[in-house]
């Protein structure tokens, strides 16, 4: 199952990311994962949070351009070669990855993937050595 990621448009301006985290913090919304994609003048902040709908509402009220994007979140063993194995399977099956971000912690590594074809990606991951996170 895919999960909803928040995508937020940000100008490259000092303190702008903090504005987002402050609003989420104030509203008791916790962040699981966080990634920033940047160009010369703007960036897209991508977040996995606890209460997606509420996060969208509070950020829109603060005039942020926010949208929801379907992504796949998996957990795989934190050992050499495990991600490579998964990515290999995806590539074999023509799944193109638009972007991804990951972080490792103890025995596991969490990976957020934005594939071009969510359903097919999920099917393939189902037969891989990883668990698919649902919220």
């Amino acid at each position, binding site marked *: 199952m895919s999960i909803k990621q928040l*995508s937020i*448009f940000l*100008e490259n301006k000092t303190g702008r990311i903090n504005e987002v985290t402050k609003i989420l913090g104030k509203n008791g919304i916790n962040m699981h994962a966080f990634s920033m994609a940047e*160009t010369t003048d*703007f960036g897209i902040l991508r977040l996995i949070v606890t209460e997606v709908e509420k996060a969208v509402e509070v950020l829109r009220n603060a005039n942020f*351009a926010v949208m929801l*994007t379907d992504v796949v979140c998996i957990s795989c063993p934190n050992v050499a070669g495990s991600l490579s194995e998964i990515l290999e399977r995806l590539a074999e099956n023509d799944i193109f990855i*638009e972007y991804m971000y990951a972080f490792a912690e103890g025995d596991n590594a969490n990976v957020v993937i934005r594939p071009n074809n969510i359903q097919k990606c999920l099917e393939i991951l189902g037969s891989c050595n990883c668990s698919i996170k649902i919220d």
Partner: protein
Amino acid sequence: MIWNPNKECMSRDEMHSLQSKRLNKLVTYVYHNVPFYRNKMQEMDITPEDIQSIDDIVKLPFTTKQDLRDNYPYGLQAAPPSEIVRVHASSGTTGNPTIVGYTRKDLAVWSEVMARALTAYGITRDDTFSVSYGYGLFTGGLGAHYGVENLGATVIPTSTGNTEKHIRLIRDLKITGIACTPSYALYLAETLEKMGLSKNDISLKVGAFGAEPWTESMRKEIEDRLGLKGFNLYGLSEIMGPGVSYECSEQNGSHICEDHFYPEIINPETLEQLPVGEHGELVFTTLTKEGMPLLRYRTKDLCSLIPGTCACGRTAIRMGRIVGRSDDMLIIRGINVFPSQVESVILEMPEFEPQYMLIVDRINNLDTLQVQVEVRKDFFSDDIGRMLALKKRLSDKLKSVLSISAEVKLMEPNSIERSQGKSKHVIDKRIL
């Protein structure tokens, strides 16, 4: 209907020869009667004999608003005081007011050109017409008034103020035409609705709107709410007043009464005359004026001229919508850039909010232009590639319109300051 087909539909050759004859006469007249022009021409080493054709107009000096102020009150008047029968004055909010004296013949020309305008709008002697421009020193009220009388329609000199009484008259007298500012027309619509009435209770069919800038969306709103057809009426007191140009039923530019007011478009920086069709500053020469004739008066209004016979049958050249004031013009890397050009590109792209800001700077001796635009919330994409493509699409369009490249900066919604009234769209950081 055409009021004066002889002039309004004259062949281009005949018009050229009429304008040439009138320009030669005008130059001789001002040379002998206005020291300001005689001195200027002597400085430029030209005499009236050098002006044989209308094409020689480029040899003549320009006149600016500042020249009128410097020669306050009667310095540019050519006719003797005994010949002046009326004086109008522009507001003097930024210096001396501008004083314009009219001879009896000037007033006749004025009511002639106003009658041309009203006829183009479809007004006939069977109409009842309300003039709701201010009567007084401002040229709008009396200028339109005598045009309506000259045409033979019934004029109701309502002037401004007491809008409820005005609406009562519009109903009871079955007024069919109105001349006023577009903003007053909207106020009239509001008052009408407040009184519990609608366009179905009145019989207005024509609105002659001018004296302030207005847009197509205002036109549509006024037409919807008052149930009339709105026409542009252009004029300026220095040249005459309302009636210098007017829209016809085609509404593709305003026909200039060019047998009386010769138009040119110039580059406001180099002052060179530009070919017909190009955008630049509109300049008028009053070919037949006696009281205060002006050579090449710079209006500061930016527009282009539209040549060719109009579908309405008139051959008189048209002026396009005024896109800005030459005061707003920026020169970037030697190219003239108007904020309105940028605006038109942005308005065409639904992905952006209509707000924008131009940041002009000079970095390493090279002028830079940054265009800041807000991405609309519903067009924001999580895909950086798509966002960059959107940015490139705007910068490509800007480049083709402006002829210089601009750096586009995508901004968050609501991050560009909204100002009341005249929005400020330019920050020029260059120290020149």
